[in-house]
């Protein structure tokens, strides 16, 4: 099924339905412009037709030019490798729209975001609590992503209302924002009856830094460095999604060498994080030897990154139009050599974990996120795959040069959705990544162009990359001077934190760190 059939389907149901325009902006991007009254029905129809959660849902302030806000809701059609963007205008004197949240759960967080950042009310959304602008420090009526926002105006402060579970023997355990480890800040509030968790309320936004606003007015060259600081452990994934959005706008083609190099760096990032995670799972059950072992492997990959690119976290490697760092023959040898010993160590690590009965017993069936729940809340990336949802951008979006297809990339999924499934998936992906790197390295040549120099144009486009946590999405709009007007970022953590709240239900509190680590989400990526 493609878009035109979906539109015909809606027309059958609503005789007076009309689409204002359908444009295919790029091969993989279709915009459907509708009036405000039909926005919800169009979204519902697309959601059903492609069984796609809301991938992205955001507003932008176009009042200076047209006197209106524009609201876009993005769905993904994996079969056709296309993103479908439903777009509507919201007039400034009537700043509201019909909420989708009751029909599509994955729209809920995005609507709250639009409400707090732009002051556009999603009418009918049962939960309009603010996500990032905490009521205790940020007065009502300040909408920072509006273009005319200058600085915070004083006003009433209030308290945040947590969801409550009441009853005999039910008590609450609040944790955070400051946790007992070297980790980011977030607030978790458990309601427990005896040992098992019966509700987990999360509250985030503690690392909110106003990233999206900071992108505005920046040139793309400056902004790509900022994208590396959105989530520090996924700096390459973020800069890649950003760069691809800008490259689409300027319609530039990337040298093949650069595409392979990007593949290598993206997979290196996946490897050091997956092994870090596996070590984290071991540490959270008090199994210190494998966790120390995993951290040695992580260190080896970080040092490898450093040797190849002069940055342990692959910063200042990506550029709009290609990459800045080439791998000459010596470096390729170092890469392949190190991979060999890294793989050997990794296999040993897996053996140790799998041969520990108490470890396996602890993670099996723990923190299960069932597929139906996962689909309902719209989790993405590795967490979705662990619950049996086949979703991997590397599989469905062959992208530039289709290098993943060329390498015969194999998407891995697991069925059970528990900690064990996520562990197995990370192990499988680690191995697949190292295979991909070997393949891509074999394709590199000496003395090739590694960057083209795009002319920055006016326009908008969606950039995306399958980072190690899942899809990173950047929607960028630039003006005639090539400066960024609006940048919407969706880090996989944003949607996946909800998955954690469901996965821990029925588990005991001591297993929470284990569940949390098996998700390994980013505070800063979700908080922006």
């Amino acid at each position, binding site marked *: 099924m493609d878009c035109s059939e979906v539109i015909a389907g809606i027309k059958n149901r609503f005789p007076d339905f009309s689409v204002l325009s359908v444009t295919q902006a790029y091969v993989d991007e279709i915009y459907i412009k509708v009036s405000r009254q039909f926005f919800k029905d169009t979204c519902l129809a697309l959601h059903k037709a492609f069984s796609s959660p809301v991938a992205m849902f955001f507003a932008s302030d176009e009042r200076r030019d047209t006197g209106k806000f524009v609201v876009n809701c993005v769905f993904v059609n994996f079969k056709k490798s296309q993103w479908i963007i439903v777009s509507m205008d919201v007039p400034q004197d009537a700043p509201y729209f019909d909420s989708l949240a009751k029909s599509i759960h994955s729209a809920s967080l995005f609507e709250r975001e639009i409400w707090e950042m732009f002051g556009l009310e999603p009418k009918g959304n049962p939960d309009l609590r603010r996500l990032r602008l905490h009521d205790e420090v940020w007065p009502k009526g300040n909408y*920072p992503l509006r273009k005319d926002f200058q600085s915070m105006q004083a006003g009433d402060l209030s308290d945040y209302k947590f969801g409550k579970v009441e009853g005999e023997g039910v008590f609450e355990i609040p944790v955070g924002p400051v946790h007992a480890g070297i980790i980011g800040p977030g607030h978790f509030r458990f309601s427990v009856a005896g040992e098992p968790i019966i509700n987990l309320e999360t509250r985030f936004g503690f690392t909110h830094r*106003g990233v999206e606003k900071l992108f505005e007015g920046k040139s793309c060259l400056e902004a790509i460095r900022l994208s590396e600081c959105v989530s520090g452990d996924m700096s390459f994934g973020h800069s890649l999604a950003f760069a691809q959005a800008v490259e689409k706008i300027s319609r530039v083609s990337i040298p093949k060498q650069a595409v392979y190099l990007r593949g290598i760096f993206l997979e290196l990032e996946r490897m050091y994080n997956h092994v870090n995670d596996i070590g984290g799972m071991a540490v959270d059950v008090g199994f210190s030897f494998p966790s120390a072992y995993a951290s040695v492997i992580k260190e080896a990959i970080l040092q490898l990154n450093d040797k190849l690119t002069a940055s342990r976290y692959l910063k200042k490697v990506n550029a709009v139009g290609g990459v800045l760092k080439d791998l000459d023959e010596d470096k390729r040898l170092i890469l392949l050599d190190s991979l060999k010993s890294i793989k050997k160590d990794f296999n040993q690590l897996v053996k140790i974990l799998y041969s520990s009965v108490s470890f396996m017993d602890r993670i099996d069936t723990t923190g299960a996120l069932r597929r139906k729940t996962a689909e309902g809340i719209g989790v993405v990336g590795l967490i979705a795959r662990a619950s049996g949802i086949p979703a991997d951008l590397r599989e469905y979006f062959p992208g530039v040069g289709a290098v993943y297809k060329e390498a015969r990339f194999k998407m891995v999924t697991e069925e059970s959705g528990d900690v064990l499934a996520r562990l197995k998936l990370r192990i499988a992906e680690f191995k697949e990544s190292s295979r991909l790197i070997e393949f891509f390295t074999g394709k590199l040549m000496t003395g090739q162009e590694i960057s083209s120099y795009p002319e920055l144009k006016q326009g908008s486009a969606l950039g995306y990359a399958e980072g190690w946590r899942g899809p990173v999405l950047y929607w960028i709009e630039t003006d005639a001077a090539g400066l960024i007007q609006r940048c919407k970022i969706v880090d996989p953590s944003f949607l996946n934190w909800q998955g954690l709240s469901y996965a821990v239900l029925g588990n005991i509190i001591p297993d929470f760190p284990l569940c949390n680590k098996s998700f390994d989400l980013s505070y800063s990526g979700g908080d922006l």
Partner: protein
Amino acid sequence: MLQILKNRILKGVLTRHIEPGLSGKIDPAGRELKSLIQKKFGRSLHIRQLDSGSCGACQSEIISANNPIYDLQRFGVNFVASPRHADALLVTGPVSRNMFIALKKTYEAMPEPKFVITCGDCALSGGPFKDSYYVCRAAKDILPVVLHIPGCPPSPLQIISALNTFLRKA
């Protein structure tokens, strides 16, 4: 269990795998750190790390500094879970408005004498986030910061050598 023992016997001391170039840097720096900590703190330095809005890269490097390769703990540096156990507060990231109160409360919860270290470029001035509507003043305008560790993020070795430079003068 047998697997672990076998592995332990076969592997021996893991640190022997460190490249000579790297261990040549870690060991002298670490030895100096250890003797400085002995001198200034009696035995060990306890640090409570706090993220006031960072991207996570600095935390990742602080964790790396505790891995078996660098193993800060053997030089007398311990990262503790509670501010009540800490001599120093190590702040990473720009200070988000939402973390302002938590940052102050964490500092207040620490026993005297105490000092504050900032880690990473963002913590010094806000870095790329300094003009944001949601970033407060820099940590040094809120708390008495005595040492800054520069870098984006600083590597484990840079963390060790910054501590050395500071302790030599302190």
